């Protein structure tokens, strides 16, 4: 029984949501179109949805003469995301599992030890000094990998709640009584049952690593060859020349700079940076929504 009011509401609602959905993607579309615009046309008419002249030159330029710089940054991003996510799961899962065992001695104290890190932190300065002077991560791959991203208390506690609610203790006890060691119980009973949660956290961590620019920004001061794609993008905004410095094409920096289709190259690089997310998103989208709901209010 559809009333008139209903129909009007549906029409208005769909219109509103269409407008909002468009505004969510329009900036990205502008970026992609700009990357496919002729540089001269862009400088003349500005960033536009309807360029007066299309061109693939920006991509050609990026891959032809400067492919190495871009590809290396891409490779570092992929490596960083893969290694970071794997290590993060290897640390998060057992810690969460342990904290979920009701009979574990010192469980309360250990939970608080994890939880406290969410309440208080020393701040950037002591953290920076600790990582650089004690662990020497400055200008190393570890500078990208280790600080702040490797594991966080929120994911641990989220997964712990999942173990508590989703993996009945009786089943684990039964496995124990059957003679399975604690290690085996975790690996062959608890972890398979917690797969959805582990997948969700893997996704959150993976996205965080792919998108991170902060660690490289702080810890990679000289070794720009270790830049991830995000760091490279960040540096390019100020200094497009960076792309050219490694290619022989530029013996004369000024002349080389003039040749760079600056505006469109920037947008092409940004498009390349966002591409993996756009490709993966449709696949992980459902899981992502579920993960946010799980984290829910506590997020």
């Amino acid at each position, binding site marked *: 029984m559809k009333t008139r009011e209903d129909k009007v509401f549906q029409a208005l609602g769909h219109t509103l949501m269409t407008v909002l959905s468009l505004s969510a993607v329009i900036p990205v579309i502008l970026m992609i179109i700009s990357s496919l615009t002729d540089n001269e046309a862009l400088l003349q008419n*500005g960033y536009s949805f309807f360029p007066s002249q299309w061109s693939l030159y920006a991509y050609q330029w990026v891959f032809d003469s400067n492919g190495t710089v871009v590809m290396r940054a891409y490779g570092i991003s992929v490596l960083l995301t893969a290694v970071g996510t794997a290590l993060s799961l290897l640390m998060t899962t057992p810690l969460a599992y342990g904290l979920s065992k009701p009979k574990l001695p010192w469980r309360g104290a250990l939970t608080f030890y994890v939880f406290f890190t*969410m309440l208080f932190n020393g701040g950037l*300065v002591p953290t920076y000094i600790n990582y650089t002077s004690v662990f020497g991560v400055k200008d190393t791959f570890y500078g990208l990998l280790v*600080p702040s991203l490797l594991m966080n208390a929120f994911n641990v506690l989220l997964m712990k709640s999942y173990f508590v609610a989703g993996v009945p203790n009786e089943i684990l006890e039964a496995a124990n009584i059957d003679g399975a060691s604690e290690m085996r119980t975790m690996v062959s009973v608890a972890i398979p049952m917690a797969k959805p949660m582990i997948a969700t956290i893997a996704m959150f961590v993976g996205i965080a690593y792919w998108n991170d620019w902060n660690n490289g920004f702080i810890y990679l001061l000289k070794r720009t060859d270790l830049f991830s794609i995000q760091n490279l993008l960040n540096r390019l*905004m100020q200094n497009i020349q960076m792309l050219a410095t490694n290619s022989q094409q530029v013996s004369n920096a000024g002349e080389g700079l003039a040749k760079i289709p600056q505006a469109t190259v920037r947008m092409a690089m940004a498009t390349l940076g966002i591409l993996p997310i756009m490709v993966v998103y449709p696949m992980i989208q459902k899981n992502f*929504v579920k993960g946010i709901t799980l984290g829910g209010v506590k997020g």
Partner: protein
Amino acid sequence: MNIKESNTRLPTANIGGKARQYRRFWPVYLMMLPGLIYLFINNYMPLPGAIVAFKQYNARLGIYGSKWVGFKNFEYLFRTSDAWVITRNTILYNVAFIIVNTILAILVAVVLSELTGKRKKAYQSVILLPNLISTVIISYLVFAFFSVGSGFINKSILPLFGVAPVSWYSEAKHWPYIIIFVNAWRSVGYLCIIYLATLMGFDRAYYESALIDGASRLKQFWYITLPLLKPTIVMLTLMAIGRIFYSDFGLFYQVPMNQGALYATTNTIDTYVYRGLLQLGDISMSSAAGLYQSAIGFVLVLGANMLVRVIDRDSALI
């Protein structure tokens, strides 16, 4: 996350004798060790270093060897106008974010929950997309719109209204609007999903009886939906208030492209600490600002949590 409950269970764990418990659980402790060590390195080890705020830092002597100067760093910090500006900016932006994002997220969630049709899911995933874009790339998107020479706004929008181009990256007064907009663009989809999940859990019987009584949609929203949502709104707002002394570094550093002319409206505690540490090399001042943030932030998080606990025990962090 409930610590009380685990404490009450501990005594029963001891029935089998402490030694036996440890014998049984040592592999579990061993498995937990890497995570515990990482938290020690990443979160606990830097803590004593916070005393650097009371020292005149000298890289050669290290944190512990540097000379004590008492509260001097704080005195300098609060004597400058910076302390006031960064505190004001951080708090006002957060307040604006809380208000704007909450209202938009609830509006979108309510509309989405009432819509019928296949496109519903598509809307939801599309408005969530900005949440997955890195801040660096967001700064590129913003640049495409606001770039002075060739930005979409200066070249295509403003001429339509006969308005002269604006030099966005050198006029601080525009940035509160731009930053609040960009933040909403990025966060509303995320927040909306939390509200939508809450809305979906409501008992439809309320709405059915309201319909029989002839209540309009607006009335239903005002007298049913909003009161039912209240606990979630209060909770999320309190959590955000607990974080009111923190800001997203990228949003305030990358998006305005670290332009000095914009500091009046874009400098927050986090950007100030960063610039002090890595651009100006003024570690003492930077660490004083950092400790000021950590200390007040800690009190606020605890306070917000205590309030949440009073209102709804299950939603509290501790």
